[in-house]
């Protein structure tokens, strides 16, 4: 395996894999830049082979940025095998091409669709109760999973080569993603109650100061069913911006008239 220093350099460079994202080859340059510390070490005795290796890693590449870690690690292992004559020159490229689409789907489903909404809901709820701790809790809740995948995925890939697919499979990310979505849903329910509770406090404040904030009362009582009702509209194809304009603009005009 490559030295720990080179692995750390690859790890650091992997955070910039999408820096030069473009429509032609997408993350190709970023991948080549990320793997270059390892290529420099593996082919340190042969400048020609080093350039050839970097050139073949400039092929089209697009994958989820965190799931790129096991791909990166496995590509490094396959380049080492090629150097020692155990694998062909294009083994790493073929491996990348075969796994980038399924790994993107796994990464999108787990990180973007499950962990990020869960962390967002946790952060928003924390912001409601504890103010500035909200963003901190959001970042902690999300990056625990993110940084673990980047580092462990890279190490496992560098150790196991193509067999890293068994490691990724063992994580059962679709199953845990589903559970994360359940947890996010529960947090949304608690958040709806918290918002209603906030509105109810405003109602009590209003009564104590001689005015009746009827709207706050309606809001507190109806937020949960309204949430479900609006969700039905979104499911029928109404985009969030359009729904926002339909719901909010008339009330802004109402506010301007009453002000």
């Amino acid at each position, binding site marked *: 395996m490559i030295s720990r220093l080179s692995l750390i350099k690859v790890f650091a460079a992997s955070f910039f894999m999408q820096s030069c994202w473009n429509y032609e080859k997408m993350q190709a340059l970023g991948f080549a830049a990320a793997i270059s510390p390892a290529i420099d070490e593996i082919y340190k005795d042969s400048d020609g082979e080093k350039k050839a290796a970097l050139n073949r890693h400039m092929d089209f590449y697009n994958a989820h940025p965190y799931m790129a870690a096991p791909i990166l690690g496995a590509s490094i292992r396959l380049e080492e095998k090629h150097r020692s004559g155990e694998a062909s020159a294009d083994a790493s490229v073929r491996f990348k091409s075969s796994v980038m689409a399924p790994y993107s789907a796994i990464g999108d489903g787990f990180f973007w669709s499950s962990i990020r909404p869960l962390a967002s809901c946790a952060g928003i709820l924390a912001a409601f109760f504890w103010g500035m701790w909200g963003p901190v809790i959001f970042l902690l809740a999300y990056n625990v999973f993110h940084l673990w995948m980047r580092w462990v995925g890279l190490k496992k890939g560098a150790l196991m080569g193509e067999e890293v697919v068994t490691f990724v499979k063992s994580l059962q990310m679709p199953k845990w993603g589903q559970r994360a979505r359940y947890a996010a849903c529960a947090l949304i329910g608690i958040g709806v109650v918290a918002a209603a509770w906030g509105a109810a406090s405003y109602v009590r404040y209003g009564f104590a100061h001689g005015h009746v904030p009827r709207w706050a009362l309606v809001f507190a009582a109806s937020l*949960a069913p309204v949430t479900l009702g609006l969700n039905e509209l979104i499911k029928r194809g109404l985009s969030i911006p359009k729904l926002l304009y339909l719901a909010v603009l008339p009330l802004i005009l109402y506010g301007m008239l009453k002000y």
Partner: protein
Amino acid sequence: MLNKILYDTVVVSVAGGALSLDRTAAFQTMVSRPIVAAPVIGYLLGYPLIGLLCGAALELLFIGDLPVGTYIPVHETGMAVLVTAITVETYKLSWLNLYEVRGGGVMGAAFLLPAAVAVGIPVSRLYQSADRLTRGFNAKFLHEAQQALSQGGDVNLTAENLKGAACFFVTMSVALFITVLPFLLVVSFAAPHLRYMPRPFFPAFAALTAVGAASAYHAVETEKSLVIFLASCVIGASLYFVVS
């Protein structure tokens, strides 16, 4: 005052450009998300709690907008910067900042938020366009690197790669500057006329919250969502009555 507006615009544009790097070009640790970016912008403008309010609302609204494949989602970082700047500056220049009782300050900003979001959504298309422009331009660095390698010359791939990140930063900062400045200039003229707590805008804020909750629910909806959602509402409400 104009100098202050210009200074604030430059500060939030540069900060917004740096934060938006996290969306695509670097790290992806989610500091570009509204719940983090908006409080940062709010802090730079002197009101982090208002930034947090803006960030939480926008986070809820765009929780399910995913960067899948080549799709570029709504530029939530740009929106967070714009909405927070408009809300904070309106709050600062109006009489709302005199209502510093019982969290009245943040409440006043809450009533300004729906209008800021309403203007932010169409403007955010410009940020998406800036993103697309950068992605198109970045192919130039790819070609330069490929040409250098194929000719057998030495090429610093890291440097070529980071040029792409620099492009993302520059285009986003410029896009933020040219969009934030006109709004802040309008706010500087209009906000001093805001002399009373804008309570009539509470229904708009309530609607914004409801749409945000629906957007979040939709983002995580599965076959068991309804049961879990209703159960957590009941448990949350029971806890509220027990605690209070």
